[in-house]
């Protein structure tokens, strides 16, 4: 019998398993791969500051409680806005859809929350939303955002994946030094709407606290 033979021949047994388990991936994932993630027309990739904010979002693992995926139900579009489209995520590496809504969806939070709301909320969530079980993220006001890494990421996605960034985004320290003032300018605009003294003094010294980058990112979610 075939199976008795197979069970005495580990090489063919392993080959058999590999063949059987690769079917699904080949048929279900590969064919549609390139097509299903085309960007929307005229969509711009995120700025360096927003990417730095996305990295804060990942570092503090916001996606363990917040989704970024509005499903096509009236109850969801009423609550969060238009349902999500595949093309909106085309520049997201990684995707940040999340799998659990301990807190609300954030995919269009930029449409209905403001910088000062976020500032007050990150300092003390239950004060802004009574009954909230979200912890405060005070350390984001102390820690500096890692702009160097964000720039490195932007350069990488531009050069490797042809994400449409302008010609000023180039490899190396010199190009970064030239672009940095623009990033600090963006940060200043966000910080102008904030009250926290730590943020004010950090910005004055040319530093960007994590929370400023995070808010830039959240504001870009529309």
């Amino acid at each position: 019998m075939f199976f008795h033979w197979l069970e005495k021949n580990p090489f063919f047994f392993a080959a058999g398993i590999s063949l059987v388990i690769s079917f699904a991936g080949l048929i279900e994932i590969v064919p549609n791969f390139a097509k299903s993630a085309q960007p929307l027309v005229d969509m711009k990739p995120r700025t360096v500051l927003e990417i730095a904010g996305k990295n804060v979002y990942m570092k503090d693992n916001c996606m363990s409680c917040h989704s970024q995926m509005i499903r096509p139900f009236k109850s969801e579009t009423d609550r969060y806005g238009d349902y999500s489209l595949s093309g909106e995520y085309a520049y997201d590496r990684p995707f940040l859809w999340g799998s659990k809504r301990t807190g609300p969806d954030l995919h269009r939070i930029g449409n209905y929350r403001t910088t000062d709301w976020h500032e007050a909320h990150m300092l003390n969530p239950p004060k802004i939303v009574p009954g909230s079980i979200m912890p405060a993220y005070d350390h984001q006001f102390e820690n500096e955002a890692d702009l160097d890494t964000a720039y490195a990421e932007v350069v990488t996605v531009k050069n490797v994946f042809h994400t449409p960034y302008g010609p000023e985004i180039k490899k190396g320290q010199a190009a970064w030094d030239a672009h940095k003032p623009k990033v600090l300018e963006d940060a200043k605009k966000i910080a102008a709407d904030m009250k926290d003294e730590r943020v004010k003094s950090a910005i004055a010294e040319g530093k960007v606290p994590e929370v400023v980058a995070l808010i830039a990112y959240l504001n870009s979610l529309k």
Partner: protein
Amino acid sequence: MQSNAALEYDYSLAKKFTFLTILFGILGMIVGTLIAAQLAFPELNYLLGEYGTFSRLRPVHTNTVIFGFTVSGIFATWYYLGQRVLKVSMAESKFLMVLGNIQFWLYFIGALAATVSLLLGFTTAKEYAQYEWPFDIVVVLIWVLWGVNMMGLIGIRREKALYISVWYYLACFLGIAMLYLFNNMEIPTYFTSGGLGNPLHSVSMYAGTNDALVQWWYGHNAVAFGFTVPIVGMIYYFLPKESGQAIYSYKLSLLSFWGLMFVYLWAGSHHLLWSTVPDWMQTMGSAFSVVLILPSWGSAINMLLTMKGEWNQLTDNPLIKFMVLASTFYMLSTIEGPIQAIRSVNAIAHFTDWIPGHVHDGVLGWVVFMIMAGIFHMAPRMFKREIYSKKLMEAQFWLQTTAVVLYFTSMWIAGITQGMMWRAVDEYGNLMYSFIDTVTVLHPYYAIRALSGVMYLTGFLMFAYNIYKTMTSGRELTQEPQFRTPMA
């Protein structure tokens, strides 16, 4: 070599990995219990400053129980039963022993370092694949070392036909290797930007919807090849060995094994129902999830029928109880999963606490119970001593069983309540509840879940204590027990 005498097996690696299983089990469950309690009592978020929030600790919990506890358990049981079903001792090959020891130390140090990296916030953000690229490389190395070791042992085996358990361990190795490699394809930004920023940081090779597809093909099947396949391999060995009963049906094992191999991989896209993934993929995921009941229940029924005519053992051997309960929870969780994968049910269940509820009746009731049963069976044979206390084992069994039931019932209620409240509308079609209403209503269920965590953790500590006492002061055995594990 030894034609008549029983082989002297070498359990040094099995013992080492057993210790790690217990260590990582305790660590992972402490963190799990803490984050469960944080949802009920948010003040607990501030115990460790920046490093103690729910969000930072959640991946520490999941990765410690998956890559720490479960994977150690897989290695420990393999280094025990692999030798026995292949009829060859590890000690017969110096090469394999050295390789195994390198694997052990690399794994131990790698796991600790990776955990610290998650605490510090270095993450790729993909669930159960959060480790940044240097740790991914270490994981791959460890996995290859294990694979070479397994193939090596199979290469020098005396028993020519591979026993069912070996099929499953082999599939575990191949499946995880494929999934892990493809899902963790990432580009370190430091090298592509001319040396800027943090060398640990990377970006995913895939973007948006494609990234999601690859991730859940991985996420779902890491569960398949980490939490299902090797655990089925364990029960195929430990249940007949403990009960003295032969496996009920070879044909059923055949059908379940190849069925599971073929069907499981397709079901990953059920994690993405109603998302922006193409519709036909969602439908495939749903349909194959339902088909998946067949091979899953095939194995579970094969196990239960193995006990046919011997159900009296259930009353006097707690170890049989552990394994029968594990099979039962496997059945529960493999019928619950397909139900959640039906679109209309998923519309309510997705994003709610029903999902962690489902995961935990599977892992607490099936995976952890089976791994503990395996260790209880191996301990007297590895340490040549009787199990220290049967009474403690009984108490542990009931405590943990109650804990699992509290866990999944509270999360079922919490999940369905929240899912229904999100979509509830009044007579004019307006949403009835603000989001925060659907959070505060969950408080009692979160409190019950935290309590169940404390109970389960206590049970696990009783298990650890029982094994420790077995090693140090269990009555010594002169002869290896053939079937039933001796206990005081």
